């Protein structure tokens, strides 16, 4: 019990450090951008207006005080109001949380549902002869090719075919499952080739491992060896990818939401960045940081539960 508590505390400390670092970075980045008052006033040059804005934002204080006030407000979850709409910045960001999570979940399901079977198939048939071998090698070549095509190009291709030419799925908006298809496919395109290839290598290697040979020596059929012996190990071997996959997922979401006009945090981030609406940018970045951290911790925890080698050590 105390062990768990200590673990939780350490996690909390790590998150706090990460958030502090991000906040600090953001604070100074915003100051680098120039005078916020100028941005806010719409480049107005009336000194009285500027001074008024500065006072209301606390910009007349010395820098270190501004920094401390900023941190103190952040601790109270007050990240200011949007410079564009005047709404609470954090609330704006959290409003977009749900659409983003929906999209992320759909993408993850699609991604894993595609990658795991494909990876297992490619790994198992790596050195097959005959038709299966040919299919396997062609698929492998295709995936190598797909790895080179960026997700946003895939997105445009999907839009061109499915939305413009055949008009099966909408290319923008967020109504119902149909509008989820193309964005989720796009994100999958960002993530899948890497995972498929790693899984294929892992499964192929695992099939050469002694325990796979042993299973065969005990009469196991090839599907049994692949599914029950090689794949579990290959999946656990691929867990090293989780961190970068989560990072890529977020990167993919930012681009995808923007392309498809999906009303999530990624699009909000980009819109706010282009408008230099920094309170909103800060809010989105903080929420994202927390989410990514939580996702990594959750993945870590899950692996600990699943992998017997870690569980007992």
């Amino acid at each position: 019990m105390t062990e768990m508590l200590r673990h939780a505390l350490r996690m909390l400390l790590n998150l706090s450090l990460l958030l502090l670092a991000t906040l600090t970075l953001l604070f100074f980045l915003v100051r680098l951008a120039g005078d916020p008052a100028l941005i806010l006033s719409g480049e107005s040059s009336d000194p009285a207006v500027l001074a008024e804005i500065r006072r209301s934002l606390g910009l007349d204080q010395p820098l270190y005080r501004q920094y401390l006030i900023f941190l103190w407000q952040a601790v109270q979850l007050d990240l200011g109001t949007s410079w564009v709409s005047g709404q609470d910045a954090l609330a704006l960001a959290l409003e977009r949380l749900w659409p983003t999570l929906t999209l992320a979940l759909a993408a993850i399901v699609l991604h894993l549902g595609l990658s795991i079977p494909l990876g297992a198939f490619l790994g198992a048939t790596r050195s097959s002869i005959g038709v299966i071998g040919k299919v396997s090698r062609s698929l492998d070549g295709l995936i190598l090719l797909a790895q080179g095509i960026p997700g946003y190009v895939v997105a445009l291709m999907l839009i061109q075919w499915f939305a413009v030419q055949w008009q099966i799925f909408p290319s923008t908006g967020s109504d119902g499952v149909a509008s989820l298809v193309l964005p989720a496919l796009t994100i999958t395109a960002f993530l899948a080739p890497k995972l498929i290839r790693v899984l294929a290598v892992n499964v192929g290697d695992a099939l050469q491992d002694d325990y796979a040979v042993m299973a065969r020596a005990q009469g196991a059929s090839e599907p049994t060896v692949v599914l029950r012996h090689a794949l579990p190990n290959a999946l656990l071997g691929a867990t090293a990818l989780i961190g970068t996959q989560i990072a890529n997922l977020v990167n993919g979401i930012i681009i995808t939401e923007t392309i498809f006009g999906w009303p999530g945090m990624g699009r909000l981030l980009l819109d706010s960045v282009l408008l230099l609406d920094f309170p909103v940018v800060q809010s989105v970045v903080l929420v994202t940081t927390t989410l990514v951290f939580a996702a990594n911790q959750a993945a870590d925890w899950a692996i600990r539960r699943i992998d017997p080698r870690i569980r007992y050590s």
Partner: protein
Amino acid sequence: MKKLLFRASLLVMLVLMVTSIVSPDLLEQWASERDLSRRLLPPLTDGYLLGTDGLGRDVALRLIIGAKHTVGIAALATLISAAIGIGLGLLSALTSSWIRQTLDRIVDLTIAFPSLVLAVTLVAVLGRSSVTLAFALGLFSWPVFARVTAAQTRGIVALPYVQTASYFGVSRWRIAFSHVIPVIAPTIGVLVALQFATLLISTAGLSFLGLGPGLGVPEWGSMLAEARAELNRAPWLLIGPGVAIAWTVLMMNSLAEKMASRLRLSHQRDF
């Protein structure tokens, strides 16, 4: 056959790159020349190999000139990220334990952090330009280099012959230069190629989102964005920049894979 294809592609790419870098001003002028009477021509018409874009500019020419921008930005970003990462990795592996712990913690926290989120912000803040973009991408992608360098260096430092050298009194930094760097260089080479491919995708991606060097510059990502605007009328505009990006990335990935298999690195699957 495959080998020949690969070498030929690599050669073509090199030639195009060199053309792009040393291209005379005249070529650049042609590339930005607008001819509104010849808008959105399909490929292979009127002597335009890849057709013309929405402003009547020659797509093929713009692609060649664009290589300078896209590949240049990605290369600069890779350089920044490698320099920071390798330096910190060596520092972490060769110095005292508290520096190591601090650095490792930083790497652990940041390696899984989505780089685009901060890169986007940084570009917005510093203003859009090629250098800013490269800087923003490089600054948030070094942890991979740091981790691999540190891990490899630690492995080498533990080797008996390095232990022997340090027993003979050879200094830490001399060990780094005579025993460590020559051995990790090929691995770093593989990583550089992979990272370059990744950063090229990010470069064009940010450009595509409007955070690139700016309007009028024939960067591949912004060409894609322009193509998107004309998607209804001229879907073929996707092909040029799309293929250019995919091809470069593919080349780099294959190059990395070839180097890695030569190094028998295939078991290090974590990057």
